[in-house]
């Protein structure tokens, strides 16, 4: 299978005053296209940091990282923004929907950034609202939706631009167990339907069972 993520000897070191914190130490791993991969580990193990590095949100201190065949290690801010807009979808623990936009408009936002024409945007957003079962809530603002509904809008938004990969940082952490499982099922279904690669971080053992593969991080290192 072709690889969508290829990381070699990744380090991420944070400087907190005079103290150095090694968030990631010598990470070498890869993700294949279409995989549904779980990053697991306790809080502070480096899951979010690794997702940030893959997601072009911050650069590694050392090492190289390729995404969809592109070396993203040393790209400038504009190029990284373009890659995020065109190839990556994000799902956040707190949903991170824009409160002033409706569910429809939140899903539409990434398509605006990509400069998609209005008619195509409309078709795409309606299809996604149907796919996540929220067609009735298109004109609702995030404040008018439940946690599960919000996360489903966030998933639809992540998939709007037909990304190569979706990165989900603790997507079920703020949901009750049943809703969390539903959201995971939805993600898994979309993974199968569209063949989109998913990497999600979690420390919930039950949710790990959905993953094709589990990568465990401990103290910034790959444990298994």
């Amino acid at each position, binding site marked *: 299978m072709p690889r969508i993520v290829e990381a070699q000897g990744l380090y991420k070191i944070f400087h907190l005053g005079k103290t150095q914190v090694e968030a990631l130490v010598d990470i070498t791993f890869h993700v294949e296209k279409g995989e549904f991969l779980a990053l697991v580990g306790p809080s502070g193990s480096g899951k979010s940091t690794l997702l940030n590095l893959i997601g072009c949100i911050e650069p590694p201190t050392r090492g190289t990282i390729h995404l969809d065949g592109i070396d993203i290690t040393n790209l400038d801010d504009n190029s990284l923004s373009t890659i995020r807009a065109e190839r990556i979808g994000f799902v956040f623990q*707190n949903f991170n929907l824009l409160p002033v*936009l409706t569910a429809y408009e939140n899903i539409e936002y990434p398509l605006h950034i990509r400069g998609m024409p209005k008619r195509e945007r409309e078709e795409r957003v309606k299809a996604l609202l149907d796919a996540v079962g929220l067609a009735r809530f298109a004109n609702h603002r995030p404040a008018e939706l439940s946690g599960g509904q919000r996360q489903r809008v966030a998933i639809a938004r992540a998939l709007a631009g037909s990304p190569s990969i979706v990165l989900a940082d603790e997507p079920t952490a703020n949901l009750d167990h049943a809703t969390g499982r539903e959201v995971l099922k939805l993600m898994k279904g979309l993974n199968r339907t569209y063949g989109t690669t998913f990497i999600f971080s979690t420390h919930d053992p039950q949710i790990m069972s959905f993953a094709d593969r589990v990568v465990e991080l401990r103290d910034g290192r790959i444990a298994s």
Partner: protein
Amino acid sequence: MAIYLKIALRNIWRNKGRSLITLSAIVFGYISIVVAGGFIEDVFYQMRESYIHSFLGHIQVSKKGFYEKGASRPFEFMIDHPRRMMERILNLPHVRSVTPRLEFAGLLSNGENTISFMGQGVDPEGEKRVSSFLTIEDGRSLEPGDRYAVILGRGLAKAMGVRPGDPLIILTNTVDGAINGMDVEVKGVFYTSSKAFDDRTLRMPIETAQKLLQTEKVQTLVILLDDTRNTDLVLHQLRSWFRQEDLPLEARPWYNMADFYNKTVTLFNRQFFVLKLIIAIIVVLSIFNTMNMAVLERIGEIGTIRALGTKRRGVVMLFLAEGVIMGLIGGVAGAIAGYGSARLISYFGIPMPPPPGATIEWVATIRVVPEVFLFAFSLSLITALISSVYPAYKASRLKISEALRHNV
């Protein structure tokens, strides 16, 4: 861009209380500029029209060199055939009236006191139109057919201790330098907005003045137009005409003769500039504060849209759009409120004391000047934009990973 405008507009609406306070600052700034600017414009207008209608007229025509050397040798620069010239000037568009003047200095005596004066020989009929700010306080004005009659400024009449009906003796030099005297009768006492003018001026029919000075010429032709704004147009026509026919005449507009007015305009404009600067700073600080708060409150959202692929310039545009929309709304609201305030204040009027050197109290209004409104509108927009620049820049430079840690 449309999506940024949509988000910006909704963000303004989202925090109504704070947006309202910021808009109030813009509207307050707008009203201040419109009221202060409209008041100053009214002062300029009333002062200008007072000067023009009291004695200057809109344009004065005289022999070349009169304005430079006429003070020391007034009779060397006289206009020949003044009647013929007046008829031709009257045919020009926008000219309402032309009246001749002959100025001279002399001594005035009532047998007990003798005092120096500035005399003006005028055409009583023509001068009515160019001296509308000259008010008769006692007696009557000069009338066509009056001979050997004078009207005196309030200060001069008081100094001489005379009233209408009293006789006076005038002593002066003729145009040839001989001494000539004349008995005249006081017909009236006048006052204008200029105390200095009232303290030393007397007027007499131009025929009487010509007889006293033994000449048929005049020094100046005072032209009154239908509107002060046409001054330059008529001035240009006159100058072209004099040049084409090689006439030894020159035309001067009122603004080249109203030295006190020009100085007042400069002084007021400087003061107004400082006022505008202070208002601009207040508006800038107010919007700056709002935008800074908006950035702080929306760190999580900024992180989100950056993670979704929005470039830094997109974030800048989002916050600048917010500032500009705020400036636009404030500008429109300010224009309406400014217009309302101007009309309301003008309805009641502002009682003003006499200006320096003048004697008459007057009522100021707030003039609705399109240029002032346009300036205030531009100021609202530009200050809103300027004060959004730094917060917008700051928002665009946030570290995405840190911004995302803030709750949305």
